[in-house]
């Protein structure tokens, strides 16, 4: 298509292009700008001389990272937290949606929904603040842990490296279990009521109806959500991690993104941090593409 056609299109829809221009500018600056800036991963960047003034370093920062002592630790922690979230966090809202679906009282159902949505709206800082208080020495979670395990901790539960992932993942379930049901509840409304009628005629009890009708009915949604989650395997966010971890728990708590934050914005090792971040972005991108391709094959549904 020629330049002329391009100019003609701009002219025909000039208002629309003018309206969308600030949005495109936003994406260019705050999303594509950093993608361009990621070049510093291949340079020895110093802010004083800028991106182009800084000398090239090739893949030096990447090899430093892969050979560094923290590579396996943060990779392992990231994958483990993702796996725990997948195993425990992923099924939780599905189970809750199934239970909600069985309720006969609409008022009770609405009440459960409203209440379980609540933690989604509480800020991360407050959630972590409450967690810190409850897991402190003498806090109610610590007391419960001591009662169950028979140990006398005498210090915060959050300072026990072996407990960090459990605390992290279970508080995540607390915050998102209710919110996560929304999409499954919507899928449930699409199930044909006549199927239940027929099953009842055949003498299927409520539990069997759940297993044989309800669950298959939401399966496509479950599969899509599962694939989306698989695509996120290496993108555990840093905000909650850095609110909860401490040098004592780095061995189990430090993930790729929190490491990127620490070496970049606390140690000011910009280029190394950018290299680790870029590595993470590329892997995440590949995972999403793969997940989407699998979804298209299996399910005939894809994200794009």
């Amino acid at each position, binding site marked *: 298509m020629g330049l002329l056609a391009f100019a003609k299109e701009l002219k025909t829809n000039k208002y629309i292009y003018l309206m969308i221009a600030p949005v495109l500018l936003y994406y260019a600056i705050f999303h594509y700008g950093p993608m361009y800036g990621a070049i*510093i991963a291949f340079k020895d960047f110093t802010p004083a001389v800028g991106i182009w003034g800084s000398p090239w370093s090739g893949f030096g920062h990447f090899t430093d990272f892969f050979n560094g002592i923290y590579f396996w630790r943060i990779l392992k922690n990231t994958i483990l937290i993702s796996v725990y979230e997948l195993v425990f966090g992923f099924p939780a809202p599905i189970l809750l949606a199934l239970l909600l679906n069985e309720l006969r009282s609409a008022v009770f159902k609405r009440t459960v929904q409203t209440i379980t949505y609540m933690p989604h709206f509480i800020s991360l800082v407050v959630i972590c603040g409450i967690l810190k208080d409850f897991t402190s020495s003498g806090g109610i979670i610590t007391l419960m842990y001591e009662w169950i395990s028979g140990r006398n901790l005498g210090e915060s539960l959050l300072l026990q490296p072996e407990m960090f992932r459990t605390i992290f993942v279970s508080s995540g379930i607390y915050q998102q279990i209710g919110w996560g049901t929304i999409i499954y509840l919507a899928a449930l409304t699409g199930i044909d009521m006549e199927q239940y009628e027929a099953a009842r005629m055949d003498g299927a009890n409520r539990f069997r109806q759940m297993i044989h009708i309800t669950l298959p009915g939401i399966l496509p949604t479950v599969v899509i959500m599962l694939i989306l989650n698989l695509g996120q395997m290496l993108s555990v966010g840093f905000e909650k991690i850095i609110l909860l971890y401490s040098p004592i728990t780095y061995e189990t708590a430090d993930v790729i993104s929190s490491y990127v934050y620490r070496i970049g914005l606390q140690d000011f090792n910009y280029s190394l941090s950018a290299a680790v971040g870029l590595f993470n972005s590329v892997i995440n991108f590949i995972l999403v593409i793969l997940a989407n391709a699998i979804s298209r094959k299996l399910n005939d549904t894809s994200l794009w």
Partner: protein
Amino acid sequence: MEKRTFSGTLFDSINYLVLAGLMLLTIYPILYVFLASVSEPSEILSHSGLLWKPLGFTLLAYQKVFENPMILTGYINTITYVVVGLGINLLLTSLGAYGLSRRQLKYRKQITLFIIFTMFFSGGLIPFYLVVKGIGLNNTLWALVLPAAVSTFNLMIMRTSFEAIPASLEESARIDGANDVVILFRIILPLSLPVIAVMTLYYGVSHWNSWFNAMIFLADRSQYPLQLILREILIQNDTSAMTAGLDVGQTNIVGETIKYATIMVATVPILLVYPFLQKYFVKGALVGAVKG
């Protein structure tokens, strides 16, 4: 109607019990924080275990929280960031969603791809930080609102919602000579109040709760939003600003209930709002879930 069987009744009973337990578990942390916040500080300090009623009653902690100038400025700053941020969010998201929903736009596909791609690939934290600093936004309100001006997820929700509005509604306006700006503001937006409510809630909550960008871009404490002040009090355990004027013994004791009161003060506004918007945001979450 299904006839009541023994197994059905048992199933229902267990289900109600499980869900009631879940509700209690969800509410209890907030209930505990509330009860502790109005209790006598000395009794809270010596108490261990669950709370079911306040131990004594005092509003001293709340008094200290409201007397703390940082909480007040934090509140004012947060409200400023939410209002300015929301204004920009709603304007840009509507403009973008309008453009992306216009079928006559020849480059619609390319523009959509340009935007969606950023959901799956990012330049990373440090390059982002350098961009914001590089254009001189640090230490200003703009460092908090501009990088968050559009959420791609929300943009897609709004686009889907605009696409559902019948084209016939705008045709007569177009014949009368209305341009796209008029069509968006006079026809599309007035028909989109539910989705605007959802956007307001989503964007509003995310501005209210955000703290990280403020932490890395703001140096001056007088600009800190509430969440950053909360972080100092709750995560870094610093209640010194509020216990000034109390003697040392009291300081430690009141410090504990001050934390609880701070949580309540920071959380209650949002908890009062969201239940009323429930039917809207559930719908919004669903539109967003449908593939774009």
